[in-house]
């Protein structure tokens, strides 16, 4: 945690700030989704409140707070109110373990008549030794929020939606877990920061004793595991219950699925959970396959010396360097999130049996085959 009160305080505050960052990204994504879908469907979308309709978010938030808070007569009250909070927890816990930028070195400084530091702060909530295991473990709790909401509402649409959602989530969790086995085998570690370090430099690998270097491509995971990346991305759609996998809330059959009886801020919290899962998925794809916060062709030292000539070496330069890499991470994350939204407004929804067939009969064998082939190729590349 840290050796003095300053380090402990910053580390704890950082966790809360990253959670709030995640929460405040949700209205932005909702705006992006509404505007983006409008342009895809050749209409305008929200454009009246504020510039480009951006203040719509604020108006929505106010409306969510002042709406009537309704609890159905037969509902199990405690679980009905607890379910939105439970739905929020897994995504929030998982997102905190994703590295967002390079660590920040803080030089020693004087404050309140005492000398502090030097410190090194990770630009992420918690630096986990086995980050991916932790993320998989906490996001496996995602089914509870939906199941509780569906059961507590005492509505058959809600219950059906919740059952479908949880059956779908657990089916695709297998694909999710298996599709990254290949890339983890190549990295040989569970530490997300170590994985990003391995993706530095140009693409280079050894096969059957000879070394190959391709200078114009970055050393990203996607070039080793293109199929794994695609399968992992697909499974993330199902995990966050997004179209084309949004069977739990197929409005033609189930009204609104597990949140039929929910309204106002409680429904917004389910949205936060869904978008949170999206962000975790996109963040993991970035970390495993797109080099995390790295910028191709630029190393940390180049950026730091470039900034240091402007503002002088020290804490400020370190902070600005970290921000540059953070922007690189955000750009990659935003592109992937846009693909999430783009797919939602392009593809129609699956039927339930085709969805389960896809999960069990297509994705599971393909991810297994991907892992097996990776293991065999790795044996020939490194083992002999």
């Amino acid at each position, binding site marked *: 945690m840290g050796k003095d009160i300053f380090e402990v305080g910053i580390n704890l505050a950082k966790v809360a700030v990253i959670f709030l960052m995640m929460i405040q990204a949700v209205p932005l994504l909702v705006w992006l989704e509404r505007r983006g879908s409008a342009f895809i469907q050749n209409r305008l979308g929200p454009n009246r409140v504020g510039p480009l309709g951006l203040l719509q978010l604020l108006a929505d938030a106010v409306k969510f707070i002042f709406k009537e808070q309704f609890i159905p007569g037969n509902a199990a009250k405690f679980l009905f109110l607890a379910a939105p909070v439970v739905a929020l927890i897994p995504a929030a816990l998982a997102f905190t373990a994703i590295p967002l930028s390079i660590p920040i070195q803080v030089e020693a400084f004087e404050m309140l008549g005492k000398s502090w530091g030097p410190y090194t702060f990770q630009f992420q909530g918690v630096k986990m030794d086995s980050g991916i295991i932790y993320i998989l473990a906490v996001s496996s709790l995602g089914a509870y929020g939906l199941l509780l909401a569906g059961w507590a509402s005492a509505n058959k649409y809600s219950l059906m939606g919740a059952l479908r959602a949880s059956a779908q989530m657990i089916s695709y969790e297998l694909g999710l877990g298996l599709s990254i086995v290949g890339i983890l*085998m190549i990295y040989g570690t569970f530490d997300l920061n170590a994985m990003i370090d391995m993706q530095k430099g140009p693409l280079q690998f050894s096969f059957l004793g000879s070394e190959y270097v391709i200078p114009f491509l970055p050393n990203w995971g996607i070039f080793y595991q293109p199929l794994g990346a695609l399968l992992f991305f697909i499974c993330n759609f199902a995990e966050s219950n997004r179209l084309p996998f949004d069977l739990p809330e197929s409005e033609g059959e189930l009204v609104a699925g597990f949140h039929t009886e929910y309204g106002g801020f409680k429904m917004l919290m389910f949205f936060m959970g869904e978008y949170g899962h999206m962000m975790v998925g996109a963040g993991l794809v970035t970390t495993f396959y797109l080099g995390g916060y790295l910028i191709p062709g630029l190393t940390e030292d180049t950026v730091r010396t470039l900034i240091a000539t402007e503002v002088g070496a020290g804490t400020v330069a370190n902070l600005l360097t970290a921000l540059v890499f953070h922007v690189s991470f955000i750009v990659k994350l935003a592109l992937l999130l846009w693909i999430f939204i783009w797919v939602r407004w392009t593809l129609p929804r699956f039927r339930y049996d085709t969805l389960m067939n896809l999960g069990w009969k297509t994705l599971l064998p393909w991810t297994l085959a991907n892992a097996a082939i990776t293991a065999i190729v790795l044996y020939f590349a490194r083992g002999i």
Partner: protein
Amino acid sequence: MLDQLLPVIFLFCVVIVFGVGMIALTQLAGFKAKKNLVKMMPYESGVPGQEAATTKVSVKFYLTAVSFILFDIEVVFLYPWLLVYSDYIKPHGAFLLGSMGLFVLVLVYGLIYEIKSGALEWD
């Protein structure tokens, strides 16, 4: 390990405080309206409810969950295996590959049986 757990516990508390706080706030600030019998009924597209909320559900959900548990255990075993596999690939690669291959083959047999027996057919 405590270093890594304490921020998580703290975040857990922050999320719960945020969630409970927001729900309490909306309960206090929200518009108050009179309750009536029709409004408190389960939503069913505007007509009175036809059947109870807990209706009979296909056994398929149960079967899916059981097979998920079994394959999940398989996935869980793959993770420690890939750590040793990438570490000891030089001296023991063939042995490790073979032992995991046997394990996975047995389970793939189970998967093929499950598909062939029609247990994964949704109708």
